[in-house]
Structures are given as C-alpha cells and as structure tokens.
C-alpha cells in the first residue's frame, strides 16, 4: 500500500531556523530516509520552496484565474512530502513518527494513495 506523508509546519518558524538548526534537522532526516530506502519502502521525496514562490490556478471558472500565493492561507503550511510503500497504516504511522522525531513541530498528514504513477506514465 502506498501512503503519502504530507508535511505541515509553520513556514515562519522554519525560515527562522539558523543554518545550523536547518542542517541538524536535514542530517537527522537523511538518516531516517536512508534506512527506509534501504528497505525498499521509499518513493519520491520533495521539499517545497516557501509559499511565497507559489502560484495558484483557480479552475472553477473559465478562463481560469491565476493568483499569487498558495491555495490556502493557513497557520501551518504544506512544505513537502514523502511517498512510502508499506504493509499497512501502522507501518506508515511508524515511519511518520520516526520522521517526526527527527523534525519536531508541525504535523504530518498520512494519506493513502488511490493512483500512483511513479514515472509519470
């Protein structure tokens, strides 16, 4: 079963991290990531640029409306994701918990995938 682990955190807090703090977190996440990858359970991983770099296309009208900024204004922002291939929800939550220990604060939404095209086709 494929799950997406969607990462939410306060962008303001994350961008206030010092370089050292950022490297510390990235170093710890790297270890967890490598272990999961070695077990063949890791799919694509992405860290997104800040929401100020985002553009939103509202397609509920014709022609679509293009807006600056993220889709939703929230206290915590969508900052990245992991795709994992695991047996069940418990295993997905286990990985999320481990990633959470490496990167405290904010929240992970663990969500099963309905369709998955790893190579895009």
């Amino acid at each position, binding site marked *: 079963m494929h799950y997406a682990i969607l990462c939410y955190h*306060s*962008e*303001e*807090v994350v*961008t*206030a*991290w*010092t370089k050292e*703090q950022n490297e*510390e977190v990235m170093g710890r996440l790297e270890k967890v990531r490598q272990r999961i990858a070695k077990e063949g359970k890791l799919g694509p991983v992405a860290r997104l*640029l*800040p*929401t*100020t*770099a985002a*553009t939103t296309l509202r397609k509920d009208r014709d022609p679509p409306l*293009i*807006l*600056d*900024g993220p889709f939703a204004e929230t*206290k915590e922002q969508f900052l990245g994701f992991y795709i994992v291939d695991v047996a069940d929800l418990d295993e997905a939550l286990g990985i999320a918990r481990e990633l959470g220990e490496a990167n*405290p*604060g904010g929240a992970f939404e663990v969500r099963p995938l309905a369709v998955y095209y790893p190579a895009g086709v």
Partner: protein
Amino acid sequence: MAEIAWIHAALTSARPQAISALLRYFRDLDIAEEAYQEACLRALRTWPQNGPPRDPAAWLIFVGRNVALDQVRRQKKQEALPDEDRLSDLGDAESEVAEQLDGGHYRDDILRLLFICCHPDLPATQQVALALRIVSGLSVKQIARAFLVGESAMEQRITRAKARVAAANVPFETPGPVERAERLAAVAAMLYLVFNEGYSASGAESDRRRPFSEEAIRLTRLLLRLFQTEPEIMGLLALMLLQHARAAARLDADGQIVLLDDQNRKLWDRELIAEGLALVDKAMRHRRPGPYQIQAAIAGVHSRAPRADETDWAQIDILYATLEHIQPSPVITLNRAVAIAKLRGPEAALVIVEPLEQQLSGYFYFFGFKGWLLMQLGRDREARTTFDRAIALAGSASEAAHIRQHIDRLMRESGQVAAG
C-alpha cells in the same frame, strides 16, 4: 535537549507580529518592547513544560498585553500580579483575545512597525540599526560590533532614533491605498539597505554582518506573505536571494572580494537561486516592471549561466537599458557599459563611459572600469593614470589591491617591451 534553540526560533518568527500588535494596542514602542520581552521570559519558563502553544504570536500578544496592563494597574493600585499557573494555562481564550487585538490588522501593523524605522530624517545606518533592534530583535551588542562602534554609543544612537520616530507620530489609523503603497516602497528600500549592510561587507566584517542579510531576507519573505500580489516585493526578495546565493563564492580565504567572473559557481546556493528565479517569473507575469524586478532579472541571467563566458550579455544589455529608462542614473549606464564591452568590445563601451566622467568623478568603479577598458585597447599610459585615480578613491584595502594587480600587469608588460 536542544529545545531552547527551537523555542528561540519560534520567538524570533513571532516577534514582528507580536511587537506590532502590542504597539497598536499601547501606542508606545518602549511599552510594546517591554511587554514582548516579559512575554518571552514567561514563554521560556512555561513552554518547555507545557509544550509550545499552537499559535506562538497569539500567545505572546495575549501574555504581553496582560503583563503590561498589570504593570500599569500595579503602578496605580499596588496590586499583585496573577500567579504563573493562570497565565500558563490559557486555553482558547488566548487566541480569542489575540484575534481581537490582531484580527485583519496584522498586515498594516507589521507594515507600520517596519515603516517607523524608515523615518526620512534618520540616516541610512540608523534606519538599519533601528530595524535590526526593534523588528528583528538583534542585541545592541551584536549591532554595535557589526558597525564597529562601542555598545554604549550604539545604545545612544538607537535611543535617539527611537525618540525621533516617536516624535514623528506615524498615525495608527488603517492607511489608505496610496499611503500603503508609499509605506511599502519606503520599507522595501530600508530592507534592501539592511541586506546591503550585510552583503557588501568583506574581510572580518563579513562574518559579523552576515546575519543582516539573512534578517533582511526573512523580513522580506514576511512582507511578501502579507502583500502576495506586489511584483516589486517579489522582485526585491528575488534580488536578495539571487545575490545571497553567491555568498560562499564572493570572498576568498583572506576575506577579499572575488569578482563575479572569477567566482566558483559550484559554491552558489542552488536552492536560493531556484527560489529567486521562481519569484522573477512570478513578478514578470504582472507586466508592471520596476527597479527591483529588473535588477533581480539581471541577477537571474548571471545565475543561469553555468560559466561566466556563457552569460547572456545581450539580455543583460536589454535589461539595463530598461532600467536606465525607468530610473536614469549614471551608475546604471556604467553597468550597461559592462554588458556592451562584452558584446561589442572595449571601444564601444568607452564611448558610453566617457561622458559619465563628470557625474562619477568620485566613484571608484568608474575609474576601475574605464582603466580596464583603456588597458584592453592598449592605451597603457592613460590606463595607468585612470587606475591611479581609482586607487585614490578605493573604499577598502581589497578594492585597492584589485586595481594594484592591473597596474602591476601594466608595469610588467611595459617592462617586457622595454627589455625586448
């Protein structure tokens, strides 16, 4: 655990919003700052036990306001403070009150807080010092060290700047659209000053001033989050990110400046460049070009070139011509001449550079570049006198050293000719 570091990051990120809301509430910068400080002390006591609140800014605004109100009351009635437990267990009340204090106003509040640091009577360095002290919360000691002055001298300067700002009486009413645009432009210019105080430093200064550039980027990101559709703010952030991306390649081991052409581009920060280029793209869609956007686009052209000799100088020429058109200045024309020199050779560039001499007679880079053009054309004697004028105007040892290299080369070559 390293928990204190994480709490520190949360406090730092909440500071502009918390101080600006407290400022609107108390209408006094000193009270707002003290209230925020007190709230931070309480946060450091209670957050490690109870965990950080979901909305740190709301918590700080709520606690800061209560603390300051209590102090006012205590001064009146000598009443006791409420005990710590009541404060640490705020529950939902905190966000409700903070919402009332804050709701919908935070955008103009933060803009106002930044704007009061831009008072036109304050010299540029004082605007920068004030913003770093009030908005970013850097210590007086840190700011004083970066500006190479004593702590008490800097303290005095900041106190005087604050008094000036208070006397200016920036209105607390919600600004109209024209006023808001004016404030935004003043704040953008001030943030770019903060950035440049960090970015332009070299030698031993560069380490002490590095946080300035990072602070400026953080505050500009905040400003863009509040004003998501402003292309010039996108341009400003992009410009900062694209310049800051080169930080690791800009100085050599001795802290001397390495010119763009000679930088090791592998040391450029690809993530910052990606963000900068994305913002330039976003800004261009608005078709409302401005100086920051164009400068960012120029920085973007450099960032896209894998090697210096693959730079798209034709594009840079067009961009400088546009910048010249909307913001005529001899310095911009001089920069355009650099692109012309690359595209059409030193002769063509010299034709553009020569008429600028009177306006730029005190400008180091003018003589540095003109000397270089003359040297390329083999007019060594004129190059030599032009370089001498550059050295006389050099602002730092590294600038002078750079010109000295050219002169040495001229001397060597003329020596060889004489020997041969």
